[in-house]
C-alpha cells in the first residue's frame, strides 16, 4: 500500500472521527439507543415507528390520552416528527381541557409540543387532515392551548360551561 494512500485514509478517518466526537458532545445522547436515533437523524434516514404511532392513534380515539402519548413518545423518540408532535400536543389539550377550567400544567406541555411541531414543519406550517379532529392546523392548536393558560374576566362567564371541547 503506497504511503500516500495510507496518509489519505488516515487523514479522512481522523477528520470523520473528530467530527463524530464533536457531534456526540453537541447532541449529548443519554443512551446508546439515542446515539442510534441521532445517527439516523444526521444521516437523514430517521423515520417514526408507524406501528406505535397507529397504536397511539387508537388509544387517542378511545380518550386514553396518557397511554396514547406514551405510544407516540416511543414512535418518535427524538421528537423530530412534526405530525407526531402535533398529536401529542392534541392529547395534552384534550386531557387538560375542562368546562370550568383547564389544567395549566398539561396545557403548557401541549404548548411545548405544538411549538416543536411548528418548528419541525416545512415553512413552519402544519395541517393534519384527520376527520376525527376539530383543530387541523398546528397554529390553531397553539392558540387554543395558549388561551387555555391565560387568565381573563371571560373565565368568570357562566356561559363558559356550555363550550365544547375541540
Amino acid at each position, binding site marked *: 500500500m503506497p*504511503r500516500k494512500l495510507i496518509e489519505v485514509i488516515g487523514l479522512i478517518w481522523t477528520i470523520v472521527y473528530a467530527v463524530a466526537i464533536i457531534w456526540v*458532545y453537541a447532541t449529548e445522547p*443519554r443512551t446508546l439507543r439515542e446515539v442510534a436515533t441521532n445517527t439516523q437523524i444526521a444521516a437523514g434516514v430517521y423515520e417514526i415507528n408507524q406501528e406505535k404511532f397507529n397504536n397511539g392513534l387508537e388509544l387517542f380515539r378511545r380518550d386514553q390520552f396518557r397511554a396514547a402519548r406514551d405510544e407516540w413518545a416511543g414512535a418518535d423518540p427524538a421528537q423530530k416528527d412534526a405530525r407526531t408532535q402535533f398529536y401529542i400536543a392534541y392529547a395534552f389539550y384534550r386531557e387538560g381541557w375542562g368546562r370550568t377550567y383547564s389544567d395549566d400544567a398539561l396545557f403548557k406541555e401541549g404548548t411545548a409540543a405544538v411549538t416543536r411541531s411548528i418548528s419541525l414543519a416545512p415553512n413552519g406550517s402544519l395541517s393534519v387532515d384527520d376527520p376525527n379532529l376539530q383543530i387541523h392546523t398546528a397554529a390553531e392548536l397553539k392558540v387554543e392551548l395558549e388561551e387555555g393558560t391565560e387568565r381573563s374576566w371571560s373565565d368568570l362567564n357562566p356561559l363558559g360551561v356550555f363550550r365544547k371541547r375541540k
Partner: protein
Amino acid sequence: MKDYAERNRLVLHFIVLPSLLLTVVLLGGLRVDADTRQFVFLPPPLVTLLLAALLSSLFLRAGTIDLHRWLAIDQPLLTNLARLLTLLALFFASAQAFNSVLPESGLLHWMFSFFFLWTLWTNQFSAFDARRLLRSLIVLFATAFVLKHLLVSSLYGGDKGWLSRLAGSLLQGASISGPGFAPSTGYISFVALALYVCALLMMSPSAEGHTKSPMLNADLDVPKELPATSEQ
C-alpha cells in the same frame, strides 16, 4: 520485510495513533449518571485546556514531539496536514485526560486543578527527557485516578463511611460534594487513561537508547539527539 515494517509504521502513525487519541477525547468527558444510568458528556473545562497547553509545552521541551520534524516545509502538504491533526488530537486528548481525573465541581475540583497546575508549572523548569516525562505523567495520572475514582468517589457514595465523615469534619463549611456517577465511570476513565498512555508510548522515542521514534519519522534518516538527562 522492510516494506512490511515501513507500512506498519505508517499505519500506526497515520491511522492508529490519531484513533487512540480521539478515543481518549471521546471517553475523557464521558460519565454515567448514578441514578439514571444515562450518559453525561462533559466538555473539557477551561482549566484543562490550560493544563493541556502546559503539558504540550513539556512534550516539546522533552523531545517527545520534535515540531521541526513533525511539521516541515520540505514534507508533502498531506503529511504535514495529517501530523497537524494528530498534534491537535494530542492536545485535546491531554485536556480530556485531565478532565477524566478532575472532580467535576466543588472544592476538590480546584484543589486537583491547583495540584496539576503546580506540578506542570514546576516541571517547565526541570530537565526532562521523553522517557522520564512519560514515567512522570504515568505516575501523575495514576495518582489522580486513584484519588478521584477510589477515594473521592467514596466521599460521594451513598453510604457515608469514616472517610466521608472525616472529610466532612475537616472541610466543614466548604462544598466538597459533587454529582454522583456510577462506578462504570471509573472503568471508562481507566480505559481513557490507558489509551492515552499507549498513545504517548507510541509517540515517545524508543527505549533502546537510540533517539528515533519507533514509528514516527520513519521516513527521516536524520538522527535526533535527546536532551541531556540530568538527575533532579
